[in-house]
């Protein structure tokens, strides 16, 4: 039975690259694409023409108008109960038109401290990660990129296309070890894919061997 019908509910499309979950270097994978998970975010509130009651948890199937008086099936996901004012994110499939190639260019021990037997007991690290993001889509996209730095750390320098990024203003600290970047990717042009390069140069502090 149909229990809810709402037209033109605003949605936000989200592409997410989580460096802890997805492979870093697609070139190392033989004949396999790295799909960037794509989700739709829906807020259960009056602005979304919802918000009358909590949305029950269950399977959600999403279709899209194809412009030919028909639809295509985009994907499906399970959702938990969504109280009024809360949001749900439905993972519908993977995008293979956004490609992230992430490599660690430096990983050195610095500030090494040794015991009387000359054994290393504590050190810092000097690490540099470069992530190249290519958008092969003919439409712009905003990629949410999650980067993870375990333990105690200091960001030495963080840049996007060689422009300095500042914590708080340009990227967020989701928790002690997780950084969130929102990378705005223009559409592909005649010259080729839109390319952005994120560099993180950081030190992990007081690491024990």
């Amino acid at each position, binding site marked *: 039975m149909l229990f809810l019908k709402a037209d033109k509910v605003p949605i936000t499309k989200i592409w997410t690259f989580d460096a802890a979950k997805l492979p870093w270097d697609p070139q190392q994978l033989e004949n396999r694409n790295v799909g960037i998970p794509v989700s739709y975010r829906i807020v259960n509130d009056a602005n979304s023409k919802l918000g009358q009651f909590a949305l029950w948890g269950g399977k959600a199937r999403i279709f899209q108008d194809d412009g030919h008086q028909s639809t295509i*099936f985009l994907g499906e996901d399970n959702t938990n109960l969504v109280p009024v004012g809360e949001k749900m994110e439905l993972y*519908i499939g993977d995008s293979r038109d956004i490609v992230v190639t992430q490599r660690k260019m430096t990983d050195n021990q610095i500030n090494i401290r040794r015991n009387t037997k000359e054994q290393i007991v504590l050190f810092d690290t000097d690490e540099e990660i470069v992530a190249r993001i290519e958008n092969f889509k003919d439409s712009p996209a905003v990629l949410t990129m999650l980067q993870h730095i375990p333990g105690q750390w200091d960001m030495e320098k963080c840049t996007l296309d060689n422009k300095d990024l500042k914590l708080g203003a340009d990227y967020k600290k989701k928790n002690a070890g997780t950084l969130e970047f929102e990378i705005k990717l223009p559409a592909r042009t005649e010259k080729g894919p839109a390319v952005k390069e994120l560099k993180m140069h950081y030190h992990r502090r007081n690491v024990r061997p």
Partner: protein
Amino acid sequence: MRRIITTTFIIVAISSVGLAKVDLVTLPTRDTVQLTIYNSADMTLVRESRALTLKEGKNSLQFSWENTLIDPTSLEMLPKANADKINIAELVYPPRVRNLGLWNIESGISGKVPVEITYLTSGLSWRAFYMGTLTKDEKTMRLQGYVRVTNNSGEDYENAQTRLIVGTVHVLDEIAELARRQYPYGRPEEIVPIDEIQRSKSMVLKREMVKIDMELPAPMYLGKPKEITKEGLSEYFLYTIEGTETIPTGWSKRLISFDIDQVPVVNLYKYEEERYGQNVVRFLSFKNDQEHKLGQTPIPGGVLKVYRAADEQGQLSYTGQSEFKYIPVDEDVELNLGSVADVVVEPKIMEFKTDNYRFDNRGNISGWDEIRTFTIEARNTRDIAVKIEIQRNFDSAYWNLEKSGDFDQFEKVDMDTVKFTLNLQGRSAKTFQYTVRAYRGTRQDDFRESSQ
């Protein structure tokens, strides 16, 4: 065996007193049918239009999906006219009856009402495959792309508009499993017996074998091949095959997707011991862009068989086969055609020594350098020019490298990998050297100081 859905719609013969006011619906055959077939999951969206003859008041329509692979939870019916006067109130699944649903419809009008019925089914699939024919000088290639649609759904689809989806769709359950459920929405912790899973797998296998037997060659005699329109939708690409197709169950149909001549290609060879062993691996490289006469749409993943023009009479020789991934517009393509013997890369260690020993306060060794000098010879025994990428991996991030000799490009790929690129003319060789100094133990302190 012909089992079309029209035969699975049955008029409800209701004799009970309690349901005596429910009017019976005569369901005609479908007017049109549209198939949207996915390749990332065993799933097809079927959309069919029919004209129901309804009477004013309550109507009931029985739907059976016996012998098909329809997911009953996906069934949906929408009136295409007089939508405000027709209320498709509910779809009920009667207890203790398998593969049967009952639509209860309240109609404010009597007469013919066009409706659209959609559902997901499994058993229809499509895949892409390609044929590449290299010119004798291997500078260009004729690239032909095909799609093959296979119907093992248990249902004949006649004159169906056929659309193919390129993309990776997230689905929670296999449609075939949903189709086999006794109760459409299942029961908690329903367990499918293992032997049933194995049986269904073996059935799929048998069907695959049948599919190969029954595959038809491309219908070249039909003259102009059907056009396939390609357009992007969300994260997917939609291929719409011109006109309609009739694909009976158990049959496959192959259609040409594109045919492009003189795609410029690079004969790329790679050497990386850790990945490919001692062999040189051949790749065929090109770009999915306009410069390469491609770039209109992404290229769906599939299998490419590569042939080479062997003589002026058009005889072909088999070069290799590669399975490749989805290629977005403007991305480079590298097709692995397997290891070869006619391009040779020979790395030789010419010198090994240790140096710069450091000792701790007890006189034990605490640090040292390892210095290795390699000579790498690359030989192209073929008549044509080739490009060779030689990747070398180190076991540490503490190293520096000195290089000399005959190579074209050098690149630090990441903290412990470097790449040398060589362009070799036909029947030529190049030799280069590099010396890598690896810093061990406390010598890494000196490395850091020197690199700061």
